[in-house]
């Protein structure tokens, strides 16, 4: 104080004010900022404590030690190549292309990520593809680094070769169940691409085979089950954050030829290079048709368009979070409105699934709320991102790689907090962004579409990870260490039946009903549902 006195000696009170006047102002502004932050934090913490949602990652799958697992691949097409990369095997062509692309764009980390991927301790011993160009491409790339890979002409040759312990099946849909059944009967573990089956009967047959071979691990290719935010979503549902969810809306929004399955036709495609009869399998016998071979998703004979190709992902995503099972009723509508190019599957499709007895919980008087509709709304003629919404009486959840929850202004549960201005319905009450430590360089609109559905990557500890890799890893861990894959036969059964009911309703134009007790889709007398589903003549 004494020094102060000396320093300020000779200053009048007026001078003092002019010298030190800024200090109290500084203090006032600082404490205003500190108070504001503390209050915001208090309210935030109170809200988070009230909500009590646990943000957690799915449990990591177990060790993959021991002898390498011998894997065979059936179907080395677009998906087959992706699956092989997740398994640790990239083609020379892809490696070259990625090296070039990362040289041009340092943000392109695909090659780096691939090289950093954990070794799954597998040998890719066998490959079966009925198109020579694809099979030869595989042989040229996968017979190196100590791996020997042999080509088999038919899937049965591969399955019975004695060279494989497990198979990955990535053929067109109409081959899924027949190949999976053959493999399981031969004692092989199976990773089967979605949709699990192409017909209703196959769905039961595959389940029967799995029940007879309980030690065989079947995983269905819904890799988004590995999405980090889904477990958090499950916890939010379990804590009744949303109240009674009466409506779920999920969408497909695409507006390009690739998104409408207009894939390239390989210049070498001919009856000399393609085993056409092997492609057709049980499909109607027609002369060689390269378009059918490469764009098979456009015809009911081999694929099932939106309901089989894309609805299945969305249905399983919601089923993973809500576990609502097979809907009691399905009504569908749509048509071929955007790609009138000879296809016979719809390109605009709306599927309403009703679950009259399902509830996620309630915040109102007992008995007032029960039942939910899931709307799958798809167009291949517009790519405005409509997202996925779970709409409850108390709050709305937006579900993607990120998870956002907004309170509903008319919520019962949050009424008090909204009145006290502690919740603003315009501001999320909860947001979970597993990528908070990194922002992704998403390459294209289509990539963004897939990424938002958890189909391309998810996050572990803030790092981006390929979801297919995690899904395959989980399957391999189940094979080695026991346990059940997150998308096994029961989840696959529900996925397939829901998709087939959607296709049937579209084709018949009638509400399709599921008999839960007898586990049957209800048919009218004399109606052969599979014949209707497969009918390839209708347009």
């Amino acid at each position, binding site marked *: 104080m004494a020094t102060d006195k000396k*320093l300020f000696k000779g200053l009048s009170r007026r001078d003092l004010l002019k010298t030190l006047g800024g200090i109290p102002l500084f203090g006032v502004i600082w404490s205003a900022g500190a108070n504001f932050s503390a209050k915001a934090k208090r309210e935030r913490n109170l809200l988070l404590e009230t909500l009590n949602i646990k943000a957690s990652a799915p449990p990591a799958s177990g060790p993959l030690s021991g002898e390498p697992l011998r894997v065979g691949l059936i179907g080395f097409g677009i998906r087959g190549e992706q699956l092989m990369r997740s398994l640790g095997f990239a083609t020379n062509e892809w490696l070259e292309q990625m090296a070039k692309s990362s040289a041009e764009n340092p943000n392109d980390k695909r090659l780096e990520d691939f090289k950093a991927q954990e070794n799954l301790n597998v040998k890719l011993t066998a490959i079966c593809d009925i198109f020579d160009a694809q099979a030869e491409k595989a042989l040229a790339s996968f017979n190196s680094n100590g791996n020997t890979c042999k080509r088999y002409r038919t899937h049965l040759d591969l399955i019975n070769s004695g060279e494989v312990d497990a198979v990955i099946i990535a053929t067109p849909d109409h081959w899924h169940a027949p190949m999976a059944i053959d493999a399981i009967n031969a004692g092989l573990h199976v990773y089967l691409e979605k949709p699990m089956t192409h017909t209703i009967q196959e769905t039961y047959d595959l389940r029967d085979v799995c029940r007879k071979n309980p030690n065989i691990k079947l995983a269905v290719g819904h890799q988004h089950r590995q999405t980090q935010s889904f477990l958090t979503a499950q916890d939010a549902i379990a804590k009744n954050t949303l109240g009674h969810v009466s409506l779920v809306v999920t969408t497909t929004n695409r507006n390009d030829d690739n998104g409408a399955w207009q894939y390239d036709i390989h210049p070498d495609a001919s009856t000399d290079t393609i085993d056409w009869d092997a492609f057709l399998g049980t499909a109607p016998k027609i002369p060689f048709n390269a378009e059918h071979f490469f764009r098979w998703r456009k015809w009911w004979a081999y694929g099932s368009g939106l309901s089989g190709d894309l609805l299945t992902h969305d249905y399983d995503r919601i089923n993973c979070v809500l576990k609502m099972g097979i809907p009691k009723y399905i009504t569908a509508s749509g048509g071929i409105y955007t790609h009138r190019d000879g296809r016979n599957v719809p390109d605009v499709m709306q599927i309403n699934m009703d679950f009259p007895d399902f509830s996620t919980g309630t915040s109102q008087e007992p008995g007032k709320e029960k039942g939910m509709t899931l709307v799958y709304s798809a167009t291949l003629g517009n790519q405005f991102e409509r997202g996925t919404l779970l709409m409850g009486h108390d709050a709305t959840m937006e579900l993607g790689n990120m998870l956002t929850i907004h309170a509903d202004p008319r919520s019962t549960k949050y009424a008090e907090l909204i009145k006290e201005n502690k919740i603003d319905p315009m501001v999320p009450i909860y947001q979970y962004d597993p990528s908070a430590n990194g922002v992704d360089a998403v390459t294209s609109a289509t990539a963004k579409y897939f990424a938002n559905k958890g189909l391309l990557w998810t996050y572990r500890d803030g790092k981006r990870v390929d979801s297919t890799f995690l899904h395959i890893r989980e399957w391999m861990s189940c094979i080695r260490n026991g346990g059940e894959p997150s998308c096994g036969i029961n989840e696959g059964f529900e996925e397939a039946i829901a998709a087939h009911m959607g296709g049937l309703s579209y084709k018949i134009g009638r509400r399709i009903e599921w008999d839960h007790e007898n586990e049957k889709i209800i048919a009218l007398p004399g109606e052969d549902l599979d014949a209707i589903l497969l009918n390839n003549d209708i347009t």
Partner: protein
Amino acid sequence: MSLTFQFTKAQTFSLVLLRILIGWHFLYEGVIKVYSPSWSAKGYLLSATYMESFFQWLASESMISIVDTLNIGALLLIGFGLIIGFKTKWAIILGIGLLILYYLAHPPFPGYPQGPSEGSYWIVNKNLIEAAALLVLYMFPTETSFGLARLFSKSQPETPNP
């Protein structure tokens, strides 16, 4: 450069007011960030629409925590200097530098994507105006009229009336 000015009382008052308001703005921005530990400039930098590689470098894993700390530190120092009236020239230079960086990361140039903002801008936006206002304060210093610097100024110039 010799800067001797003779301001009217009203002129001094206006300049001091401008200095305090800008200081207030910087200080409050800094304080809020100090008290929100999860705050980071990363998103702002990564979404830069101009000189992207520079700003993305600032946002990179190895840089971002330094950048965040420096940014908060600078905001507080500038706020402190301008309000207290101490080393205001240094505070002003720092402030102009910071504002130019903010400006360049998302400049309202014609043809450049304009993110969500509360107004409409063409070439000129509030960051640029605030930087220009700081330039004025640099040219017309007032810290010896109002501020701690009074203590250290030998002549104790009481702003003379003309």
